[in-house]
């Protein structure tokens, strides 16, 4: 049972981490879009 959980965690940790990074990146981009809009500048 323990090794089943460990194996599941070993494989599923990577998509979970991917989701975390995706969230961080999207939040940062939204923040940058708002900043650029307020400053009247291009995003990129």
């Amino acid at each position: 049972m323990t090794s089943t959980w460990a194996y599941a965690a070993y494989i599923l940790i990577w998509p979970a981490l991917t989701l975390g990074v995706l969230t961080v990146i999207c939040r940062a981009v939204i923040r940058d879009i708002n900043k650029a809009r307020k400053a009247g500048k291009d995003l990129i």
Partner: protein
Amino acid sequence: MNEIEFTQFSATTVLLLLAAFYGGTYLLTLLIRKEKEDTTGFMVAGHHVGFGMGAASMTATWIWAASFYAAATSGYTYGVSGPIHYGLWGALMILFIYPFGRRFRQLAPNGHTLGELIHARHGTSSQLILAGSNILGSIISLMVNFTAAGALVSVLSPLSFQTGVIVAGVGVLAYTLTSGFRASVFTDFAQLVALMAIAIIIIPAVLFAAGGPEIMVAGLSRMTREQADLFSMDAILNQGAPFFVAVLAYAIGNQTISQRLFAVREDNIKSTFVTATLGYGAIVIGLGMIGLIALSVGIEPINGNLNNLIPQMVSTYLSPVFVALFFILVIGSLSSTADSDLSALSTIMMADVYGKNIARDNPNPTTMLLVGRITMIVATAAGLVFASFSLDILVMLVFVGALWGAIVFPVIVSCYWDRVTNAAFTWSVVVAMALFCIARFELLEMTGITVLIFELLASVGGAVVIGLMAFGFFGRITGLIAGALTLVVMLLFATGFLRDYMVLVASLTAYGASAIVCTLITLFSQERFDFDLIKQRVGNYDDAEPADDSALIPEGAK
């Protein structure tokens, strides 16, 4: 387990998927199109890329089509630890470059390429060595990515390999040509979001469709002891160690990375590269786990080709919708890398070749942009031709990898030690490449004193790799101590042992020989370089003024 082959789409479906992907990407670039593009925007997006866009672009660029296939192959071949020994070291290539990247940026805040910095530091020969290795690397990368597109299209549909190659080449060129690097970064974000979302869905979907973790635990009995071991020496020596040696070489040798170092806002370099490290590692190791799942459930790759593992697993266990998502995932990853390669190549030709060597620091911005766009068209054509002929790129890869290994020490040391000269840089690379060829192709009989000398050089190379990594994060004293300790350990344990791994000896020889030659020639030099000159010599081409030739003389020589 192999009755099911790949899911087959009709030609119309695949063409519609490709049209949706490349058409959507092209439409996205219309949002950022400017009536009059400037050279700094075209090459480095004005040095003002934010953290989110920068991290997304770095991650998307570093993930190419081969990343998934190779990670899955590693999982299938080396078992439990296999995906980690592929993805972790690839991720660390991004992480280990950022401390040096901050130094590059400090020295040349208006830079576009590492070659410009080296030109300002040393002159033409050193710059062209670096630029040449960057160009070769990007052409190879373009070719590999177009080849992957052709292979995927031909495997999943009745369309030919050439059709896939041409659609990918024309599609990538179409959305990159007008806005250059700005288009590359902007579309990288969209491509990465799609890529990550699909990876998040596909990995657990394959795991549970294949029977869940219970099947995986049961599958441990199918594995060899080495495959079932998380700390397998087999995986470390055959997969991890060669990658570890390449960590700094790939990062220094790739203009796609240095371009982003010069493009991201200076205060965001660390957060951008740390996030990209995590993103790359998570996606690539995660998709590599599909290879491990295949091993656990006893899948045999179709036609014995390990590159078939992921499409085969997705086709076997998931519905055609997931296969279509996988198709977009691969097309997205290869396109994001290919557009970065096009931007990298155009920037090298604009700044290193035209700006520094043809126009001699007095370029016409309009001509410069034209050079960049023509480079993109020529590079795409070259990539398409090479990909269509399915050329064997192994020898080219061997040479480029060695060249990157040989330039690591001279490039990094040139940015910190004011005594390093152009001769030290150039000769160190030339000697290192010659010794690499002797070791790699065993041009001398590798016995007795000869092989011992190469083991000693390789030991120095190992010390250089560890020393530079420690130096980047912890400073000179720690770097020197780490390098010295590694050298002692290598001399004690590697001599008499490394000769059984001549490929590794050759790679480490490139690092070791270049470090020794560069250091020796430098120690004989009395020149002192003023690093502030780099800032003056590397500038913005849009408002370039006639170059002051007196500034091109190294200060110590005045």
